[in-house]
Every structure is written in C-alpha cells, then in structure tokens.
C-alpha cells in the first residue's frame, strides 16, 4: 500500500549575517533571550522593514538548483495575518500567490536516485519569509505550562519555505528527498543544517482510502522518516479495521515517538493576505538570474557523478560523500595532497564517520584534517602500515591530532610483512595455547582466539588475513584440520 506524501520544509538561512528585514545578527543561538532584537524585528510601531538582498539572492540560487521553471520577475512580500504571541506584528511577512503577490519561484523538481532509476519529485513553490519568535514553556509544554515566555531573538530570521507536490511514496523516499535538499542547501551556502531547529518539516500523508493527515513539528530529517513510518503504521491499522481517517493535523512528539492529534480548528483560518505596502516589489531582471546561474556551484548529483566517473568510486561511496558537503570537501582536499580516491573515500565515509558517530562528535569537533589524513593514506597505500592499522591510527589522529608518520616511526608501527618472522610468532603462540589448539578442530572461535593472540603479539602490525592463513597452516602441520 503506497503512501502519498507531500512536504513543507522551512529552512533558516543561517549563512546570512543579518535577519531578513533588519540588521540584527542572524546567529541568535545561545544568545540571552531578547538581546538580538531591534525596533524592526520587535514590530515596534513606525519601524520599517528593509529586505536583506543577500536572502533574495540565495533564494534565487535555490530556485535554480531546484530547476524552478518560473522565477518571479518581481519579488513581492505579502502579509499573513494571525494572532499569536510569537508574532510581534500579528502578521508574518511572507509570500503568497494572490492579491498582487507571488512566491519567488514555482514549478521545480528534484530528482532522486532510487533503485537504479530516477524519481522526479515536483517542487510546487519556494517562499522567502520571516521566522516568528520562540515561545519558551517554563514547565511542560504548550498544553500544561502555567506561563509562557517569549524570546524574539529568532523573530525576523530569514526562512525559505519549500513546498513539494505530493510525489513521495514512502517515508524512506521522504528522507532521501530531504537528504538531497539538505545537501543542496549546504552546497549553496544557504544554511548549516546541523544547527538545532534550522530545518523544520511539516508533512502531509495519506494512504489509499484515507484522508490527508498533516504532521507538524518535525525537527530533523531522521525524525521525518520516523514520524511518517509511525503514521503509515497507524493509518494502515485504522484502515484495516475499517475505521475512517478524516482530515486532521497531528503533532510529532519526538520523545515518545508518536504523533498526537492537535486541537481541531472549526474553520479554515483566513489570513487576509495582501502585498506589504512597506516593501515595494524588487525587480529580478533576467540578467541577474543569468548571472546567478553562472555562479551556481557544482551540485551534489554532479559531484557524485564525478566521483564515480573520475575517481572510480562505487555509487554508494560517492553518494555518501557527495551528500555531505563538508565531508566531500574534506575528501577532495585530502586528494589534493595525496591521490588515493578509493582509500581516502573509505577512510572518510566508513572509518571516520563511524568514529564520529561512536564518539557523538560532529565534524570539526575532532582533530583530523586533510593534511593528517593524506599522510595516513600514504602510509596505508605504500603499505608501511596495514589498512587495519590505518583505521586504528585514524581514530588516534582524530582524537589527538598527532602526526601519523611520527607515530609510526616513534612507536615502531611499521607493518610486519615478513612471513618468516610472523611464522615464528605463530609457532610461539600455538605452542603456548594447547587448549585452543585442541579445541580448534571443533570450534572456529578457537582459531579466532589464536589469530587475536598473534595480532596482539605483533601490536596489530600484521595483516589479519595473512596471520589467519599462517595459523591454519601451523595447526594443520600439527595434525589439526580446520575448516576454512
């Protein structure tokens, strides 16, 4: 049973220096409440908005990257009215099609690589708008807190709103779409989406036979897949029982991992949109858009293709690198210093990411850099150390920022490649562990144990596969037949 999913994504343009309509710093995270505010973003009477041109430029870049066929000739901002305490003017400056207004871009698409094929997800529109302030609940949440504080530091931060057509068919596809969108946003230097709350998603999902359910407040790409999977299961269960699914809005609770119904509005709210008379339309001349096209950087798909075609990477590896701009940049920086694409790609996409995840670190919070990684790759590539050693050394370098060449030198970590020498160690270990030798015929774990002992003796300098072969040969020599 295929799901029909559409997404509405809000991306904060965290790369901008200032807010959308005033000169307050855009970097509000960690600042004491209500310190990054001014008459404009507090909506004080008489203060007037002035459009941050950089935000418009970034929006045009995104529109181009998302293949939008229609980019507005004039950027028009409209007012959307509703009363809410996080909205200082009780209207939000946004974009709207109607009454003389229009989104900055419409009618685009994004292609997903799915099982060898290409799926095209249509983009309905892109809007530029201001973020409201933030409500802080002193106890519990919106329903239980006895008092609510308002922090307007976020008020007026530039947002991009990206709305897709309902072209996604599964929670996984939704995640893949968002991963790619995130990569594009980062490639265009619009935002650092690893920042808390910088990407917020509302999703519409329906199953055949059920009405459209909106899930609000999803805070990350991973959560989107979880929330939608939850909805698929919930809706499927309802439908299989013959229950009806009506149109409703639900709230994603990431702590409990469930969606919960929000208070149902009795009627559709009328936002009374009209073009903001304080903001005259900004013309977007053709030449400006053409120059933006020329300025577009290489995008994730193209980069991935290059990694496959020119670096000989597997598609999976190329994808893993290309979808993470900082990782891909790191990769290419390393290659400039030492050319070993496949080795470096594995070291980064497998070993290094594994290291970060295990230690709950984000890129940049460790001490690895392209110089050190290039040295490390050279050690492995030139067989000074084994790949296994390389992996362990990478962890150490990332933790301590030490020079791998010096460590190998100082600690005598050069790989043990002489079979002669290894064989002597193997003999010694086998001699010393009669019980394991006795067990080896029946229990393959005993072989592993012996291999492990030899590896320890060599301080990891030996190739594990070679050690295993030598151990098996040694056992055979002693009349113990071991299944390979």
């Amino acid at each position, binding site marked *: 049973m295929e799901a029909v999913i559409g997404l509405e994504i809000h991306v904060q343009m965290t790369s901008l220096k200032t807010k959308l309509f005033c000169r307050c710093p855009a970097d509000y995270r960690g600042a004491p409440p209500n310190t990054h505010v001014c*008459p404009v973003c*507090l*909506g*004080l*009477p*008489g*203060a*007037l*908005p*002035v*459009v941050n041109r950089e935000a418009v430029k970034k929006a045009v870049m995104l529109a181009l990257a998302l293949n939008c066929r229609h980019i507005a000739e004039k950027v028009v901002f409209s*007012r959307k*009215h509703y*009363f809410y*305490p996080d909205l*200082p*003017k*009780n*209207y939000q400056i946004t974009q709207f099609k*109607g*009454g*003389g207004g229009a989104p900055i871009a419409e009618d685009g698409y994004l292609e997903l690589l799915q099982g060898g094929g290409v799926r095209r997800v249509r983009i309905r529109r892109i809007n530029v708008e201001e973020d409201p302030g933030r409500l802080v609940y002193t106890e519990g949440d919106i329903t239980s807190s006895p008092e*609510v504080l*308002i922090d307007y530091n976020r008020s007026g931060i530039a947002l991009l709103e990206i709305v897709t057509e309902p072209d996604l068919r599964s929670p996984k596809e939704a995640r893949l779409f968002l991963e790619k969108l995130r990569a594009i946003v980062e490639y265009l230097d619009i935002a650092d989406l690893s920042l808390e709350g910088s990407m917020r998603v509302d999703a519409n999902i329906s199953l055949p036979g059920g009405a459209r359910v909106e899930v609000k407040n999803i805070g990350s790409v991973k959560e989107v897949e979880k929330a939608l999977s939850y909805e698929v299961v919930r809706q499927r269960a309802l439908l299989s029982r013959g229950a009806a699914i009506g149109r409703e809005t639900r709230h994603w609770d990431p702590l409990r991992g469930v969606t919960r119904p929000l208070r149902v509005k009795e009627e559709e709210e*009328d*936002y*009374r*949109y*009209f073009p903001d*008379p*304080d*903001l*005259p339309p900004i013309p977007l001349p053709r030449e400006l858009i053409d120059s933006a096209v020329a300025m577009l950087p290489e995008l994730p798909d193209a980069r991935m293709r290059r990694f496959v075609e020119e670096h000989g990477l597997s598609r999976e590896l190329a994808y893993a690198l290309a979808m993470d701009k900082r990782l891909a940049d790191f990769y290419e920086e390393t290659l400039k210093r030492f050319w070993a694409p496949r080795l470096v790609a594995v070291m980064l996409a497998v070993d290094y990411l594994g290291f970060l995840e295990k230690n709950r670190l984000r890129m940049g919070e460790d001490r690895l850099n392209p110089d050190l990684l290039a040295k490390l790759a050279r050690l492995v590539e030139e067989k000074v150390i084994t790949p296994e050693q390389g992996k362990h050394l990478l962890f150490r370098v990332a933790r301590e920022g030490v020079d791998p060449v010096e460590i190998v030198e100082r600690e005598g970590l050069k790989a043990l490649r002489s079979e002669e020498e290894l064989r002597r160690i193997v003999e010694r270990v086998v001699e010393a562990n009669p019980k394991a030798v006795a067990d080896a015929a029946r229990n393959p774990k005993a072989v592993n144990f012996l291999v492990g002992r030899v590896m320890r003796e060599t301080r990891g300098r030996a190739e594990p596969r070679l050690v295993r072969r030598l151990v098996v040969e040694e056992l055979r020599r002693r009349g113990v037949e071991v299944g390979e």
Partner: protein
Amino acid sequence: MRIEEMPATIVAEMVRRGDLSAVDYVSRILERAERTEDRVNAYITLLKDLALKRAEEIDRAVGRGEDPGRLAGVAVAVKDNIAVRGVENTCGSRILKGYRPPFNATVVERLLMEGAVIVGKTNMDEFAMGSTTETSAYGPTRNPWNLERVPGGSSGGSGAALAAGSATLALGSDTGGSIRCPAAYTGTYGLKPTYGAVSRYGLVPYANSLEQIGPMARNTEDLALLYSVIVGHDPRDSTSLRDSGAHLARIENVDPAKLRIGVIRELVEEPVDKRVAREVWRLLHKLESMGAEVDEVSLPLVDYALPAYYIVAMAEASSNLARYDGTRYGFRAPGATWEEMVVETRTRGFGWEVKRRIMLGSFILLAGYVEQYYVKALRVRSAVRREILSLLSRHHVLVGATMPIPAPRLGERVKDPLLLYTMDIATVPANLAGIPAVSVPAGIVDGAPVGAQFMGPPMGEPLLLGVSKLCEEATGFRDRVV
C-alpha cells in the same frame, strides 16, 4: 512682533547670531502653551523640562561659537504618531498609553541635527483616523480661532499649536488630508509631500501606501525651511525615493504671468459650501489679476476616489493595527488567558472609529472579497493618478477648496462616519496619486479660516511652494497667532 508670532527663519537666524536666547524664546513659547492649553488642548505631551534643557544646550553651543543648525532653537511641535526617543507615543489612543519608543523617527533625528527644540507631542485623531481631532482618547483639540469649532484633523494639535502660538513649526502626517485639513482650518500652511520624499521611519503607520510626514507653518518660508530639514532619502524606509533631497524644498520663483492654474470644478461647486468656494475664488481672482491663467477643469473620478481611498486605507489600517495586543507595550487589560487579554485590551484600548476601520479593513481583505474591493480600489487609484497627471500636463497646478465645508462645530460631524468621510473629498486624490499638495489660507468663514489646496506633479514641491508664496503675497495672510 510678539515672540510667539516670529517666523522660524528669523528665530533661527537670531539664535544662531546670538541675538536671541533660545531659552528666553522657548520659555515664552512654553508660557504661551500654559496659557492656551486649557482651552485648546493642542498637546498630548508637553515637554517643558526637556525643551528648556535643549534650549540651554543650543545657547551654550552658540556661546562656544558653534552653529547649532538651520532650526537653531526653533520650537517644533511633533504629532504624536511620530517617534521621539523616550517620549510617550500615544497616537491619540488609549492602547498606546505609556508606550515610549526606544528610537527616534528619521525626521526627528533630522530636526535634532539642525538644532530644533521639540516642545511637545500634539493631539490627533486616534491613529490619525478622523478629520476633526475629536476621536483622540485625550480629548478633542479646539480651534484657537473659534473655540466652538474643530481645528480639523487628524493633525489638529499641530495646526492648533501654530495658531495658538504654542509652537513655531509643526510636523503633521497626511494619509488622506491630515495635514492640509487642519492647515486650512487654523490659517496655516501645510504641505503633503510627494510619496517617498520624506522618510516614514518612525511614523506609526495608519495606511502606509498613502501617507507622508509633512511640514506645517505660519508662512511659506517657514514651511520650506522645515521641509528642507526633513526631506531626503532614508535607507531605513524602502519606499523612500532615491533622488529626493533638499532641492525639493526650494521655493521656486513663480512668474504669475506664466502660471497656468486648473480649477477642479468638482472641488469648487456643489456640494462644496458656497462660502468656502467664494473665498477660494477670491484668492484665485487675485492670482488672475497678477497675471495667472485660471481655467476650469474637471476631475470626474473624484467621486470614486473617496471610496477607493477608504478601502485602501482601512485595509492597510486593519493590518497595521493588529500588533496592538497588550503583549509587548502600551495598555494591557487583564485576562485569564492570552486570548482573553488580547480581546479585552483591544476592546478597551481602541475607540469606535478605529474599531470601525479595523472591522471594515479586515472584511475587505478576506479571501473572498480582496479582489472585489481591495484590488479594484487599486485600479481606481491608478485611474485617479492617470487622470490627475493628464490634467497636470496641461496646467502647472490644480486647485480647489482644501475642505468642502467650513470648520465644523465640535460634535457636528464626528458622530456620522459618512459625513466625516466626505470631508476628505478634496484631499484624498493627492494621496491616491502620490503627488504633492499644499494648503494655503484663503479667507475666513464662521470665524475660522478656510483653505485652498494646490496639487502639483510628482516632485513638484518647489513649484507648489512658489505658488504658496504667491498666495501669501496675494492675501497677506501669514504669521497669524490668535
């Protein structure tokens, strides 16, 4: 000449030369205010201490040999919808009681840079919605010429302060006539600039696309002087014109023999009051005798301009006034929940006229009606502009009565919104078209002045100031303090 009648040009000149102490002069203005305020109520906030302190600074600067600027020491009244840092900014509304802006409007910055002394914040119709200064939550302002009558509005406090001699210059704002109307009724000169010529930064918005801050004065030179200080591009206002500047405040030397004046028939005939029309004609005949060519022209769209104006103004107002909810500043009524507090605050904080316009404006913008009303009104607006510009291609200026009736008695108009709205028939076209217009004194009816309004082409302020000067010479009406 009494000190309170002195033109600003002379006050500034004397203060700059050290021939007049700013403190002596400002004290005199403040004494004058003390004597007249009980009857006139031109001010919501009088800034006695602040003004005197500022005057002392000006005197000291002069003593040090510095030049305090072109408005050195001059007492300026500022309408209470223009932000002065730290000074209560009520807009004539209860809902903004206690709100003190933490910033200066751009025009206020410019006043202070030129040495002006702000003597107070003047009374106005609540949020500038009215033409009589009776909808103010701080009581009506009375016309110094005739205390039974209104001073016009919404910048009625500014006009009354000039006529009463409790200010030498005044700032007003004009959304649909709010400078020109009180100028007409208080015997003063008032200019509504070309849209975008003066920064709106710090002007509490009523209808953003229509309004401008503008100067009010008792003679043309003062009007031009104040205008020259406030005019000019402001990067903080996106609707501010790039090429506006002090050149717009020049008084053009108009040769009456070369002046072609178009008299808008609809603004001098029925339903315009005959006595008002007679005073306008009297002025025009004088200009004619000085050599000007005076022809009658027709502006048939006038009838549609008024409803179009009110639709646009109310729509924008309903949006602008949404922010007053008691959460952040100003008046707050108690409530058990945030929603209740907001409803109660707005119920008690806004007056009737404001509520009426919020309701109508909200209705106009509803999804089902916005095309039918708002978008259609914008089309009428464009048509009005085209029609006026077409007339202005054949005539240098267009003229008519500023107000169709003499200054009403208190309470006479304000109770009936339609009667109130029709008072603006002659003034709203200039706001719809975004063109400059000036009101000059034409004569006296019922013991209070009436005015003639000249409209000019975009950026035509120098011409209008020149025509204003001609009128001043023709009528001899200037520097009148009652």
